[in-house]
């Protein structure tokens, strides 16, 4: 276990380094992205541009610029080109809404994904299975922005039940916090409910044909116990992998949903920074997001070893 942690930490550092270098390079090769030019404004004199270039170090060699920026990101001194705000502080502000959104949506989609998958699989071929299949496929096919807008139109503008967006701190008012997040949660969860229920359904149908399920029946276990202890237990392993990867990726910002509901989270910040080609927040957010992806990857491996005793930590997969 200790060895596993050390190896994983080394791997994580390597991935984060590669991701940051790539982001930095991409930003520096895309055309018309001279930040000094844009910071100086439309009718800037060449002198002003030159001043800014020198002040911000844009004339230094790229590796030097990269190191400077990384140093600033990790010491919390990094300032954005656009609006000159403290990037790390702004990201920390976004953690509240983004994490609230992701955790709430994850609870929703795991609950309904597993429930629908279970119901579909145990009644495969029946009416309920067919209905749930249609629902799942519809959920997967509908773009997130469409679901979000449709919900807004009907539940907010027409029915006036839920607020249209914005974020209220949990500490301020738990009720309003939930009210404001209700629509974003549902919007974000719909796709995942669809995917997870389908994956679980097919895993379970495969598992039902396994010899050990026949053994379980031959032992005289009740159908419910056969399903929960032998079919479900084994079918959940791949779901855990999926969940870790999806959830880790979302913590770096659920861009579309945050933008629709003006949650002022990390995803929305990423979106604005990208439009402005604002490198410092892009770098910081990319690293932030990549960190969670890598972290959850490691957690998935640990969960795997726990869920499947044939897997041992620190050994290559067979």
């Amino acid at each position, binding site marked *: 276990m200790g*060895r596993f942690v050390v190896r994983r930490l080394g791997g994580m550092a390597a991935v984060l380094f590669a991701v940051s270098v790539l982001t930095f390079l991409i930003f520096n090769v895309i055309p018309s992205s001279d930040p000094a030019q844009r910071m100086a404004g439309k009718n800037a004199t060449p002198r002003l541009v030159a001043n800014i270039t020198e002040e911000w170090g844009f004339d230094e060699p790229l590796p030097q610029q990269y190191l400077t920026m990384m140093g600033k990101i990790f010491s919390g001194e990094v300032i954005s080109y656009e609006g000159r705000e403290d990037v790390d502080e702004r990201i920390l502000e976004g953690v509240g809404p983004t994490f609230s959104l992701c955790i709430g949506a994850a609870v929703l989609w795991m609950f309904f994904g597993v429930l629908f998958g279970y119901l579909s699989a145990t009644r495969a071929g029946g009416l309920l299975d067919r209905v749930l299949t249609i629902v799942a496929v519809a959920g997967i096919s509908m773009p997130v922005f469409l679901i979000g807008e449709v919900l807004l139109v009907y539940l907010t503008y027409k029915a006036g039940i839920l607020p249209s967006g914005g974020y209220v701190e949990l500490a301020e008012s738990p009720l309003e916090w939930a009210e404001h997040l209700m629509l974003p949660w549902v919007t974000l969860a719909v796709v995942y409910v669809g995917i997870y229920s389908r994956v679980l359904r097919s895993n379970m149908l495969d598992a039902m044909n396994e010899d050990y399920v026949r*053994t379980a029946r031959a*032992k005289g276990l009740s159908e419910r116990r056969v399903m929960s202890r032998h079919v479900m237990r084994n079918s959940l392993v791949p779901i855990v992998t999926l969940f870790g990867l999806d959830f880790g990726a979302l913590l770096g910002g659920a861009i579309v949903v945050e933008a629709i509901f003006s949650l002022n989270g990390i995803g929305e910040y990423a979106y604005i920074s990208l439009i402005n080609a604002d490198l410092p927040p892009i770098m910081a957010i990319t690293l932030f997001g990549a960190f969670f992806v890598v972290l959850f990857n490691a957690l998935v491996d640990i969960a795997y070893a726990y869920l499947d*005793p044939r897997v041992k930590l620190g050994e290559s997969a067979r």
Partner: protein
Amino acid sequence: MSEALLSVRDLRVAFATEGGTVQAVNGVSFDLAPGEVLAIVGESGSGKSVTAQTIIGLTNSPNARIEGSARLGETELLGADEATMRGVRGDRVAMIFQDPMTSFNPVHRVGAQIVEAIRAHRGEVSKQEARRRAIELLDSVGIPDPARRVDSYPHELSGGMRQRGMIAMALALEPEVLIADEPTTALDVTVQAQILRLLGRLNRERGLATILITHDFGVVAEVADRILVMCEGRIVERGSLDDVFYSPTDPYTRGLLNAVLRVDQAPPPRAAREGQALLEVRDLVKHYPERGGMLRRGASPVRAVDGVGFELRRGETLGLVGESGSGKSTLCRALLGLIEPTSGSVRFAGREIAGLSRRRMRPLRREMQMVFQDPYASLNPRRRAGQIVAEPLRLQGEATGGELRGQALELLGRVGLDDAHYDRYPHELSGGQRQRVGIARALAPRPKLIVADEPVSALDVSIRAQILDLLAELQEDFGLTYLFVAHDIGVVRHVSDRIAVMHKGRIVEIGPADEVCERPRDAYTEELLAAVPVPDPRLARERRQNVGLE
């Protein structure tokens, strides 16, 4: 005869399929007396497994139509509601299956799975009590250190131990009837012998009535009291062990018994072969580094092949016998240049091939071909039989178009298939036909050497004989040299000029087939021969008495 424990009358099971109704079981009746071992023998598709599974209500396909009656004491099992059947399954009738690896749930501990079985029927038994019982059960089936093994996961046990665990689980509630469906088919012979002894002991000591389902007459002769022979859903022959073995009345039974290749009977002598050496192997070693992750180097390597040397003469058949893990497969792959040996020499037709680069190995590849165990898994399911056979011809670039088809058809003809099979996909062929396609494919590049890795162990006995005859015929016609790899020394004796016995990465004995089988010099060979079940009840009884019952 005492009152029947289980009484099956006119059992019929039909499955509705796309191609019409398949009558899997067609009017089967039998009685099982307390304390007897009843063997149901048949080939694949005979309906023997469906019969057993239907009795305990595990044939629950919505397409199945079940008729007839199966009474366990006072309880009618067919058509009983689920709650009744749950009470019967595991408690009064227990079942063990062919493959102990897949029959245990891999993610739960063996002990937990036994405890689960106990508590499903005896809710009042505490977990601690059930666990104590599980340890006792594991002990009673001969699992060493049961207090520790109870917490093992299935993959931590060997195949034989897993099957003992399955038996322990089946015995957990002291059932009246045990149904064993091919309980030893997936096991090595020496392990099979142990499991059969265990089943025999349980039957004697506990009076456990057993239905033994098998295709193997050797297994039957070792443990059964009575036999039913099934064919195409019907019972074609029934009687006591001696009746069926020594005076079978049904032609199908006689055919099955004649097709059995016995290790204790010499085959007709084969013409002596005094050819030159085609393959010379010297001190061949293949070690695999211990699998333990990057940071655990220095652990002792797995010695898969540990210093093997032999010679294979042109036109001869060398049988290579060994149990799983003996290194047979690794040896074959090293001989064919598919893996690089750690050290040693392999000379093929006078040329050193160990350590040859892939590019220089390629022209030699066509001269050594392989026939695999499972013809279904080794043929591409999306290609037609003709295409499969034509592909190696096409790769040689000697023929195209109609000529290619003609050559492929000729090869199919040589293995006993015809034009009608050319356009069939593997799943549209029977097991025997598939293996014929596999052989035709191996013949296509006109090889000198064919390595046949368990070529008949997935086939039914009657088909096995046909394939072995075909291989012998092709050997004569094409002057082929065979390395015939198998775990079944009975089969090997009947096809080989010489036999090499492999154990723990070494060849422990090599010599003329009859000599190795009749006068083994190595202790392991002796053990192996003694473990082979003999399809001869009188001999089996004699052997049991010599060994002293246990």
